[in-house]
Each structure stands twice: as C-alpha cells, then as structure tokens.
C-alpha cells in the first residue's frame, strides 16, 4: 500500500517537475510574458500552484515537522504575503523581463515562498486566519487592478498601455469572482476554501 502510494506520488512529482521546467522554457516564457495579463494572471499563478502541489506531495508528517522548523503558521503566511505582493510591483514585472536574475528569482520565490509555505500553514490556520489571508488577497488584487485601470501613465515599460488596462480589468473581475466563491464556501462549506481543515487528521494547533 505504502509502496504504491509513494510510487504514485513519485510519478506526480516527476510530472510536476516536468511542468515546472516546461514553464521555464524560452518558448513558454515568451508566450506567457508577451502580455501583461498572461504574465500576471496565468504564469505567476501557475508558479504558485506548482508550489502548492509540491507541498501537498510532501507527506503530512514531514509537512508538520517543516512547519515547526519554520516557526509555525505565521512566518509562513507572512513570507507568502511579502513575496506575492513584491511580484505585483510594476517594477518587478519589468525586471523579470529585462533582468535574467529577476526572472530566476520569480521562478524560485513564487512556488517556494508563496505556494509551498501557504500549504504548510493552511491546515493550522483557523477560519479567521484563512479569512484574513483570503480577504487580504482579494483586496490587494482589486486595488491593484483598479490602479492599473485608472493609472494615467504606463506603469510597465515592457507592456502596452491598453494591455495594462486589460490586466487591470481581469484582476478586478477575478477578485470579485474569487470573493463570491469564497463567500459561497463560507456559507456552505465552512469557509475553508478548497481544503478541509486538518484533512490529515493530525488535529490540534501549534503555537
């Protein structure tokens, strides 16, 4: 049983790694980064998702010991908030296109400082803690989207100004849709989002 389970997760890890490498290929990068909307709303979320899936492939026991090593849920959540908001800066977007080191930093930090630590922290977060993370994310997305729509100047030198406006609208729409989806889970499913609390059955709270 355990053997087949690890075999299965081994295959998933391999597929995940392959997908990660695929995103890093020049062709995929050129296409995904050619428009501001694809860059911010497809490539960057996919990188975060890679981190999320990677963390879920880690056995729950190891996740817990990693979480303890990192000092519990809060440092993980804070790191994720800093890293995700950094990549929302227009300057960081431009840098990812013009400076190879910034691009490398983006590919490393979005999975491993946003997706991965969020999963580690998630099971330990209370309903209010999760609500804080979600609403913080929605409002950041909506405010930034609105800024992009009304900005009188082009904020990214690498993107057309109407691309910036489109990205702004997509961000506002995404934040509204996500908010209602989250509200729905709050009313029906307990506000936990995609994941049930303590799904590993390991109960209790740290810190």
């Amino acid at each position, binding site marked *: 049983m355990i053997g087949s389970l690890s075999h299965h997760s081994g295959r998933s890890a391999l597929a995940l790694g392959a997908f990660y490498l695929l995103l890093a290929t020049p062709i995929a990068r050129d296409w995904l980064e050619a428009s501001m909307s694809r860059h911010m709303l497809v490539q960057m979320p996919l990188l975060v998702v890679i981190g999320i899936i990677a963390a879920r492939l880690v056995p729950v026991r190891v996740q817990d010991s990693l979480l303890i090593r990192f*000092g519990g849920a809060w440092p993980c959540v*804070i790191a994720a908030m800093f890293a995700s908001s950094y990549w929302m*800066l227009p*300057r960081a977007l431009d840098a990812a296109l013009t400076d190879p080191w910034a691009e490398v930093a983006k590919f490393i930090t979005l999975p491993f400082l946003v997706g991965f630590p969020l999963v580690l922290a998630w099971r330990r977060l209370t309903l209010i803690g999760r609500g804080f993370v979600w609403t913080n994310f929605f409002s950041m997305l909506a405010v930034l989207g609105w800024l992009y729509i009304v900005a009188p100047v082009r904020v*990214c030198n690498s993107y057309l100004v109407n691309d910036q406006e489109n990205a702004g609208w997509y961000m506002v729409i995404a934040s509204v849709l996500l908010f209602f989806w989250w509200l729905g889970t709050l009313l029906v499913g307990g506000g936990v989002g995609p994941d049930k609390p303590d799904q590993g059955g390991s109960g209790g709270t740290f*810190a």
Partner: protein
Amino acid sequence: MSLAKRSVLISALVISLGTWVFWWGTDGFTAFTAETARRVEILRSPRALPDVTLEDQNGKNFHLKDYQGKLLAVDFIFTRCTTLCRSMGMIFKQIRDLIPEESLGRDFALLSISFDPEHDDPANLKKYGEAYGADGNIWRIARVQDKAELQSLLDAFGIIVIPDQFGGFEHNTALHLVGRDGRLRLISDIDKAVPFAEQVVALL
C-alpha cells in the same frame, strides 16, 4: 525555546527581511516602476553612453561623441507617430526657445533620435524636423542605422520600444539631458519642459 516564542521571533525576522527586500527593490520606497527607477539611478550615477554613428535629416553622418563639451537634450521618436512624438516635437521646440540664443549650438544642442531607421530615412526625418523648425544644426533629427548600435543606445538610455497593434510603437517617453562629459545625467517627464530648460540654463 517554545514554539510560540520561535514563531514570534521568526515572524519578526521574516518581516524585517521582507521589508528590506521591498526597500532595496524600490530604492527606499521611492521607485515602484522601472521608469522611476531609471530616473533615480541616472541622478545618482550619470551613465556613460555608447558612441554610436548617426545620420541626420541632411544625410550627414556624425557621432554621439561629437557633442562632448556641450550640453545635449535628447529625445526618442519615430516620425510616423501620431500621438506623443507630435507633442515631443512641440516640447523640444519650447525648450530650445527657452535657452539664451548665444548658447544655442555653442554650448547646448538638441537631438531627436528615431528608433525606426527603416522608415525614417533622411527625407522623413527632414519632414518631421521642418514641422517644428529643427534646423539640422542646433537641433538635429537623426537615425541610428546599425541595429546593434541602436539597441545598445536604447539600452544605455533605458528606452524600451514595443510594437503596438497599429503598426507603430509604444515607448517610454521622456526628456534626457547628456552632460558635457557625454554622460546621461537627467531624465524628466515630458510635461516638465520649463524646469528642464531652467536646469539647462543653470548649467550653462
């Protein structure tokens, strides 16, 4: 150490590190866009420019280095542009008219550089120049024909040109001042023509 204590300690560490990264990445919370960053950096350390070969509206070849010893105002254009570059022409004309006449050409010159050399041959450059009274001496309209040289010049200035969906270009537009030492020393907004001219006059 208890986990709660560790949690607080590591959180504080993450917050300080995160704040430092933001501080470092935005030049002390001043430059949130690449355009502002470019301007801040130039002010802090004026940047050397490659000595490219240009061709002006009279078909005359010259080098960027030929301007050393003079203050030089530079802008980037393409003559098919129907929006910003039109106002750029007016703005450069305004700047020229704000500089004392005896300094024009002797201590101060203007240069509009086209990044669309395929279309902007001397004839088109001349047409653009005549629309704003660029005389080809005090104010030259020029193109860089060599692709690699043009790119190195755009890189040094921090200009990013991207094609738009109408067959034209979008690019970051600004007023640039090159010092007597041939280094780029000031970048300002195009609606700051008067302060820009005042800066030039102060340096004359």
